[in-house]
């Protein structure tokens, strides 16, 4: 079985699971874990999108 993810879906899956682990391991309380996980997710995905658009601008 072979999975073919698109670039965006690969970035999404990576951001989701890495953020969950970061949230659990880097904070003490459940609330802080959730907030930090969400922050990491936004930063991962936002960073990838921003870098993509920056490369698009450089290419033009």
């Amino acid at each position: 079985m072979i999975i073919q993810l698109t670039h965006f879906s690969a970035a999404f899956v990576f951001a989701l699971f890495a953020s969950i682990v970061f949230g659990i391991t880097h904070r003490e309380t459940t609330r802080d874990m959730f907030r930090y996980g969400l922050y990491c997710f936004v930063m991962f995905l936002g960073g990838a999108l921003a870098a993509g658009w920056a490369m698009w601008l450089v290419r033009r």
Partner: protein
Amino acid sequence: MANQTTAKTTTKAAEPAQPASAMSVIAPAVGWLIPGAGHIIQKLWIRGSLLFVSIGTLFVLGLLMQGHIYKANGGDILDMLGFVGDLGAGGMYIVTLAMNGGQGAIAFAIADYGTKFMIVAGLLNFIAVADAYHIAIGKKQ
């Protein structure tokens, strides 16, 4: 300034050493073999399950994306670093090697993502193992 530095050094030296319990050895070892198990044996069911699902899914997705798994005798320095990352996945890495999986397919560009997924899964498991240890010694709740 010098007094402050001396005072800080004295305070640090006066801290009592953490008592080594059986759990502080077992939890990281089990957590390395099975991601999240180090938390589960300390009765942190939800955290352990989430870690297992997250790290396990990343590793399995990496395999299904035809990612390459590194072996100990890679030769190249980057291969050795990849091996260290992969090794963090513990039991999943051992099983994959035993089943001769993770050969990697150069034909797929996405296979390179798979390779990175597996390395990251291993590195995340290292973080989870450290977290399980900190919980076991009482440094974290």
